[in-house]
């Protein structure tokens, strides 16, 4: 891949920045932890445990989830050729949430091949919503992406009301778990969570990176892509599958964390341009960096209390969404 100097500098900056934040963030928190405490578990067991079993997994999970959500957002924006198309505006995160809520209600919490039942149910929920949205686009010709977004909002509302119903028929403890989960958050203990997200990210991102040339062509229009030789149907199916993996995997573990998938690809487009061969890498790196910073901020700004990270991303994302809406309408 031939990179311009600017692209190389930005990608390197995002890589080094991500590396540094993942390295530094676990030391930051309600209580700062020094390096010697981290290395000597026998002498400082509390700090050692907080660092290795709470903060490091959380920081890693934040990075992986940010990268996954940002990549999914980029893919939707290109597939639908609409800057407002994201897993959330299309109702896909709500579908994944519904899947997870049903799994919690039915007690599917056991691990299957290292992946929890909740994750699998969230993935199935994401896939079902993707199929629904995809089906809507195929229902009649000339389905505009604006109409599609409205349909996504409607689908999101529908799933949210079903989630409420599931909660209503759940026990107190199940209902609490669902509510806590719906608030979104990255509070995990141990490496199980980041490790169980890893296969979703590797496969989902792998498919997207493999199809960056096709994404470039799809971004210019389906007819254009097909006439250049892209198997549009197969490519779309693969990309919908990949985004379902990414969104389903993240939402199952972290709950709904909005706006990462919308903001990061846009900022990266401004930084490195529209070529997906570079953009996909930049978006993943930026998404990881962004969510890790947001989460570090969320758990330190009003310590000892924590702000759910979804609140931070929404506080940034809401105004960004409005800005984008005005900008898109004015084009």
């Amino acid at each position: 891949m031939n990179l311009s100097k600017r692209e190389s500098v930005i990608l390197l900056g995002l890589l080094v920045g991500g590396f540094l934040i993942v390295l530094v963030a676990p030391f930051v928190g309600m209580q700062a932890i020094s390096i010697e405490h981290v290395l000597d578990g026998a002498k400082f067991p509390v700090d050692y445990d907080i660092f290795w079993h709470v903060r490091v997994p959380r920081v890693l999970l934040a990075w992986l989830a940010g990268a996954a959500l940002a990549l999914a957002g980029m893919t939707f924006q290109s597939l639908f050729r609409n800057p407002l198309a994201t897993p959330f505006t299309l109702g896909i995160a709500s579908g994944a949430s519904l899947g997870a809520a049903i799994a919690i209600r039915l007690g599917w919490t056991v691990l299957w091949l290292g992946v929890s039942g909740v994750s699998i149910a969230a993935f199935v929920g994401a896939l079902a919503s993707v199929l629904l949205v995809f089906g809507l686009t195929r229902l009649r010709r000339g389905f505009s992406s604006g109409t599609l977004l409205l349909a996504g909002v409607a689908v999101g509302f529908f799933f949210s009301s079903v989630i409420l119903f599931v909660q209503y028929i759940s026990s107190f403890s199940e209902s609490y778990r669902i509510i806590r989960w719906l608030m979104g958050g990255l509070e995990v203990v141990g490496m199980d969570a980041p490790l169980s997200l890893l296969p979703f990210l590797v496969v989902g991102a792998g498919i997207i990176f493999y199809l960056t040339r096709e994404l470039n062509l799809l971004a210019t229009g389906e007819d254009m892509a097909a006439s250049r030789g892209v198997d549009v149907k197969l490519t779309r199916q693969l990309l919908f599958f990949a985004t379902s993996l990414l969104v389903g995997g993240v939402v199952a573990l972290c709950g709904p964390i909005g706006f990462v998938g919308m903001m990061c690809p846009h900022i990266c487009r401004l930084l490195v341009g529209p070529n997906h061969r570079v953009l996909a890498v930049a978006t993943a790196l930026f998404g990881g960096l962004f969510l890790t910073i947001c989460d570090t901020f969320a758990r330190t700004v009003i310590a000892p209390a924590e702000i759910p990270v979804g609140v931070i991303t929404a506080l940034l994302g809401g105004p960004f969404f409005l800005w984008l809406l005005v900008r898109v309408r004015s084009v």
Partner: protein
Amino acid sequence: MSEPIVDVRGLSFGYGTAPVLTDVSCSIAAGERLAIVGPNGAGKSTLIKCLVRLVAGFKGEILVQGQPLDSYSQRALARVLSYVPQADGRMFSFTVRDFVAMGRYPHLSAFTARRAHDEAAIDRALSRAGLDALASRPMDQLSGGERQRLFIAAAIAQEAAVLLLDEPTTFLDPRHQQEVEGVLANLHDECNVTLVSVTHDLNRALRHADRVLALRGGRVHYLGAPAGLLEAGRLEALFGRTFALSTHPDGGPMILPD
């Protein structure tokens, strides 16, 4: 006569239950310039969309270089047929060169980078379309005429034997129309590319096509030499109105504007 490069036999197609094309047959020879004309809704664009499989579910047979259309992968088909769609107005900030480079897609596999001969093909396409000077400009900063030449350049970079153009000059002013015509004429004369264009410009069809296919209500109304379209009231029957005819200074027939 040599084997046609594209052979359409008894093609019928409809969206839902509404028929758009009915029993259309047409053979296109290599190096031919075919203009497809007809009133709005006659099925002109749909016909070329069937050829590049942008619509599915037609009846009849389409042979490309003697082989059934179904026997081609989309990538292999793109090495023979290249389609220039109507611009839909949505543009991206790809640079002109990056967009033209996408025309090399059918010649590349997933993990191969563009090689020297790909870059040479992109340079030739930019040069043919007169876009060398604009190579690094973002495509959303191009004028309408430049944009149309860009779409044609990407199709040229594809190095397909047949170029299918959907109203390539419809929204352009006369100067830009002439520029696009010039690019296409050179491409045909120097590279023997087969040109199939849907057009509403009847004079363009009369002057630049070897044959004209007139569609009316999804059926073949006329297929033959351009001058034949003006005979026996065919043109009047095609559009349901009368036309005033004259002679162009170069001697050919010309349809006068109202």
